[in-house]
């Protein structure tokens, strides 16, 4: 098999020129549709207990279809371990919900406990997911420190925690107008602070995640300044305003044109006209989201991955807003028209677009890499926690 003598006597190869590791996604919507349909039924008839098994099968399908330089990723996660983690989370969330029904103090205590364990769960989920992902037989790892997970969460968590504790313990008397107004003012202030801090938090989250990624001897680093995230957030605000104005104008003109064309004068006091105008408002609202969400997603993916490199690897993400916008519109429309039967197709199409927008450039030939350490045993609790609230790898 592996002829060690032959390898050592061969002339040393010159260090290879940087090569591009293309990412290809070969999943098919129609195939994933059938996996999804069967998964859904099994989840329902088991009252949700099948969820972690369905998740493992879904990840396996997506990994087997994600080819990096011609080699697929593999998922080694044990669904039974994921099941354990799933049960733990159900108990945790159940206790949290129950505490909320018992008393205000119990709810605050439960909320604080949840906040206290959440960063640890987040880290565990990253460790589990990375630790069970391999490429060319090499396990990935997540090396972020526990302390850093808490530090990354602090700027968003602390004001929120302070506010939740304060507000649950100081519910104003409805009769006391001044107290109600003060309560409202504080809520607005906290919302403002959280909004101002969220770009910083995004940068901290991404830095924590990407800085912890490892494969073989490669240690990823994300070069992402807070300033660039704030700039992107400003653009996002601009796009929101512009798209609101534009879609309002377009939809309004369209409605006006149609009315003029068919000679219809809407009687504003009739319920049908009012419902019609509400529908128009809803359309504008959805259009704004159809612009803002893909814009944010595309730019953030590019920002996070373009700044990521390791000793030998550098990432390039060129996800175009225009393609993601078109896809989002199509996905929403077809999902709505098919009563969500289109969802698995949408998931596959989005994964393809987002994955194939990324390119990896390598200074080494990865064939020469060797594992840095034995695969670790991560706990699956965090993995489901990450999925539960949509915290997952950015890619």
């Amino acid at each position, binding site marked *: 098999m592996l002829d060690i003598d032959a390898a050592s006597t061969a002339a040393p190869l010159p260090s290879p020129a940087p090569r591009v590791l293309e990412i290809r996604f070969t999943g098919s919507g129609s195939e994933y549709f*059938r996996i999804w*349909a069967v998964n859904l039924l099994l989840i329902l008839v088991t009252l949700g207990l099948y969820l972690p098994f369905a998740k493992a099968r879904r990840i396996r399908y997506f990994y087997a279809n994600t080819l990096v330089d011609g080699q697929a990723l593999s998922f080694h996660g044990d669904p039974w371990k994921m099941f354990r983690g799933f049960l733990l989370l159900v108990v945790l969330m159940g206790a949290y919900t129950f505490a909320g029904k018992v008393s205000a103090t119990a709810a605050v205590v439960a909320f604080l406990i949840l906040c206290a364990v959440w960063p640890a769960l987040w880290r565990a989920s990253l460790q589990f997911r990375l630790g069970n992902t*391999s*490429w060319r037989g090499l396990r990935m790892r997540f090396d972020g420190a526990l302390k850093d997970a808490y530090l990354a969460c602090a700027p968003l968590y602390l004001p929120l925690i302070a506010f939740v504790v304060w507000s649950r313990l100081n519910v104003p008397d409805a009769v006391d107008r001044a107290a109600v107004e003060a309560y409202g003012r504080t809520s607005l202030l906290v919302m403002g602070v959280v909004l101002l801090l969220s770009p910083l938090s995004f940068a901290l989250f991404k830095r924590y995640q990407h800085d912890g990624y490892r494969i073989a001897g490669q240690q990823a680093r994300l070069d992402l300044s807070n300033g660039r995230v704030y700039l992107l957030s400003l653009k996002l605000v601009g796009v929101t305003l512009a798209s609101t104005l534009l879609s309002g104008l377009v939809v309004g003109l369209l409605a006006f044109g149609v009315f003029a064309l068919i000679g219809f004068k809407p009687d504003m006091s009739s*319920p049908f006209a009012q419902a019609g105008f509400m529908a128009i408002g809803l359309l504008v609202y959805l259009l704004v989201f159809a612009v803002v969400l893909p814009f944010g997603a595309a730019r953030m993916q590019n920002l996070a991955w373009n700044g990521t490199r390791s000793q030998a690897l550098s990432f390039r993400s060129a996800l175009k807003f225009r393609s993601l916008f078109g896809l989002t519109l199509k996905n929403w429309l077809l*999902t709505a028209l098919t009563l969500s039967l289109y969802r698995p197709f949408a998931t596959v199409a989005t994964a393809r677009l987002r994955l194939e927008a990324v390119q990896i450039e390598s200074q080494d030939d990865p064939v020469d890499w060797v*594992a840095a350490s034995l695969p670790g045993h991560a706990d699956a609790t965090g993995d489901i926690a990450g999925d539960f609230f949509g915290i997952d790898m950015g890619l």
Partner: protein
Amino acid sequence: MPSSPRLAADWFDGRSARAQPVEVWLAGATLHFGDQTAPLHSLTWPERQRHGQRQVLLPGGGLLSFADAAAFDAWALASGRSDSALVRWQQSWRLAALSLVLLVASLWAAYLWGLPWAVDRAVDVLPRAAEQRLGEHLLSGLDSDLLKPSGLAADRQRAWRQRWDKSLSQARANGGPAVPERFEIHFRDGGKALGPNAFALPGGDIVITDQLLELLDDEPDAVLTVLAHELGHVQHRHGLRLMLRAGAIGVVASVVVGDFSTLLAAAPALLASNAYSRDNEREADLYARTLARAGGVDASRMAVFFERVAKKREAAVESHPVAIAISSHPADEERVKFFGEP
């Protein structure tokens, strides 16, 4: 012994990224690859799909990679590995479609029978004190939001209470239906938002608005029947049932509809609560008619109530059309007939 079919694979040992070309074959319950072996039960075997690569995960972190998926599937079949039931299932369009049909059918069955059953069990178990606390919480929320203190003079309030108590004690004397252990009538100003209205909260708090009393000032029997109707809701614990149902449906809907939109997730809960409340209305109507008759109250006067509320509603369409357009009203005529039945 016939030789088992062989297939070329790339073996990654989990330590080096270099692929080692090996031949793979099955012998009994053992997988051979090159000069290595692994028992079949220790492997993670890939599912047959049309797309993607096939990987057999080895114990200890290595894997065998098969770039040609079709060749792998043919080899696995020839080696006596048949598809699992699950794989056969999801490979077939017909069975996948069937599972969607079954999914919808079981959701429908759960909604039709499972949910009411679960809610009834939960209502049986939930202590009255918890229900009462919920009601108090709701009432204080309404008080800060939609309701204002009643503008009704104290002696008028007292007069209504006396009429109500008198009809109740008469009903008790005549062997009328059982009355809830705890209930309380609250007079409130419903303002523009609620208008002429009466409603029961979980735990036995019944709110009746000044506007309704004003509308039916000359029809005390109609007012007493309305109150009896609300008492029916309390007796059957409809408020609690409604909240539990809406809550459960909301949870299920948000799982099924997923991340798509909270708007969509809220819709089924809203629709379902309306459908349920119709059944509850009928139940409360029956209770009200029985109680009213036992209490010497003429329930057929409800016809006046429906007539006046309908007139009010027509007038309100001019000012609040959308609110009316989306709210549900059980057929008035049917209910008028029901209360008028001899």
